[in-house]
């Protein structure tokens, strides 16, 4: 068996650091269970008391009340006077006196008896909840068919650091990958000869994919950091839905989220492959089925890696600083007119358009690194992103042709900017794509008179700062 060197990040981080985190989590679970057991014991004591009271309530005799004396007094000390009187009458064989019935009625209508039936029902339900929770904790400790949502909720309330929680969740994701069941090969009859294959040539490919997936996982690990257990649980659910072929990742448009799904898919596939490779005793002689399975898993890993590679350039990178735009051009129709009409806007709205243009001239974009960004969502497959900036109720849609060259699509009211921009994308997608190359510079000179006029109407001076 050939040994594979795991990348330090996964081999050490996942295995050794995980053990520390898991031990800490186990300690927490033990402590939590202890608390549950204590509360369960108290509940059981209350339920026993309620049974005693219930028996007395049904019997309604002096004897039954006196039998329940200890329980009654523990719940309501004010009953002592009445119970002492009952004891007196009982010991003096005067239990048939009319006063006795009066005292009994008073006791049976006290709060203790009134609340008992209701409390008993509630306590029974609470007891079931405690028992269920204790059972779930035990299952997690035993690693036996535990509930993932319960595990994540325990993690959430535990004292583990976010990093420790993430280590545990990452490992749990690994562990929940389907186990590979390898068929037991039947002994061959002497007359049969089974064809075997060598998969040695796939080993370098496997190693390369393993290295690549480890690098990508390390590079984009930050996308998963900081996510709480619920967020990770939802990501895991989407991975399962994709693996069940209910949806295709081709339809996923939010880049960071798609990357996270791909990352988790890589974790899953890597785990499956690692387990599968361990089951192969001799890489020079494997069955056709084993060869096909290995090819399939390698292909899956390769696909997941390719998806991340394809997405990476479109992942928003941090603006180091807002730099003034090099150039602004406008999307024009076939008659060389822009996609918006200034006369359709009020004076206030024109001010907002002016503010948006000034912002773009300063290189300001409304999105930042991380989850907050204003990117137009389009069902068309685009090789560029369309961003939105807003100022009050007015928004502008634009494309970054290069780092500091902007193509403005249109201005519109916030509620209408989406439909307006989507319409333009449908109509002018090809033109916009071509502007990302040499056509851009030829338009610069052509649009200069238009820009001067527009800026003049809006009161913008070139180089003006907000």
């Amino acid at each position, binding site marked *: 068996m050939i040994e594979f060197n795991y990348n330090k990040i996964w081999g050490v981080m996942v295995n050794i650091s995980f053990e520390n985190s898991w031990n800490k989590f186990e300690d927490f679970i033990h402590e939590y269970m202890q608390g549950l057991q204590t509360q369960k014991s108290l509940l059981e004591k209350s339920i026993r008391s309620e049974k005693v009271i219930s028996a007395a309530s049904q019997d309604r005799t002096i004897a039954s009340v006196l039998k329940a004396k200890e329980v009654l007094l523990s719940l309501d000390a004010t009953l002592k006077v009445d119970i002492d009187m009952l004891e007196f009458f009982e010991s003096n064989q005067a239990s048939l006196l009319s006063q006795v019935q009066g005292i009994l009625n008073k006791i049976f209508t006290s709060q203790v008896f009134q609340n008992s039936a209701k409390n008993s029902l509630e306590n029974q339900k609470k007891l079931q909840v405690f028992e269920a929770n204790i059972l779930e904790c035990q299952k997690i400790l035993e690693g036996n068919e535990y509930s993932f949502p319960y595990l994540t909720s325990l993690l959430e309330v535990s004292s583990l650091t976010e990093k420790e929680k993430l280590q545990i969740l990452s490992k749990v994701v690994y562990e929940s990958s389907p186990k590979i069941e390898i068929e037991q090969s039947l002994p061959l009859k002497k007359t049969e000869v089974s064809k075997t294959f060598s998969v040695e040539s796939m080993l370098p490919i496997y190693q390369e994919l393993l290295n690549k997936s480890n690098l990508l996982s390390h590079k984009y690990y930050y996308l998963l950091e900081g996510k709480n257990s619920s967020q990770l649980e939802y990501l895991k659910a989407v991975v399962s839905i994709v693996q069940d072929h209910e949806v295709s990742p081709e339809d996923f*448009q939010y880049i960071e*989220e798609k990357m*996270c799904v791909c990352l988790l898919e890589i974790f899953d596939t890597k785990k499956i492959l690692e387990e599968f490779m361990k089951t192969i005793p001799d890489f020079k002689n494997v069955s056709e089925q084993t060869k096909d399975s290995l090819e399939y898993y390698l292909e899956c890993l390769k696909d997941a890696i390719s998806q991340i590679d394809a997405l990476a350039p479109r992942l928003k990178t941090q603006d180091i600083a807002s730099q003034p735009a090099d150039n602004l051009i406008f999307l024009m129709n076939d008659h060389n007119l822009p996609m918006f009409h200034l006369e359709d806007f009020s004076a206030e709205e024109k001010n907002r358009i002016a503010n948006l243009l000034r912002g773009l001239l300063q290189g300001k974009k409304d999105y930042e690194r991380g*989850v907050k960004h*204003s990117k137009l969502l389009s069902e068309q497959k685009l090789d560029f992103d369309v961003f939105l900036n807003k100022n009050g109720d007015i928004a502008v849609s634009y494309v970054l042709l290069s780092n500091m060259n902007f193509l403005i699509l249109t201005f519109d009211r916030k*509620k209408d900017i989406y*439909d307006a921009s989507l319409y333009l994308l449908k109509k002018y997608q090809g033109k916009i794509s071509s502007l990302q190359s040499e056509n851009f510079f030829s338009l610069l000179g052509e649009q200069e008179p238009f820009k001067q006029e527009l800026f003049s109407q809006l009161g913008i001076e070139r180089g003006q700062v907000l």
Partner: protein
Amino acid sequence: MNDFFQKIKKDCFELIALKKVDIGELSFLLGISEKKFYQNFTHCIEDLTFYLKTYDLLVEWGE
């Protein structure tokens, strides 16, 4: 998939109510119109990253 949709929808709207989130602002950050936002939560769409993104934004809203 329906279980996923129903659960994340419930969690999202609970957060919207709890944090008094402006749907217009939220849909802007999602890059869609308000109308599309409501449509996406009326019927489950195939782009599940929309729900992941919405939930992420809501978890971090106000932080």
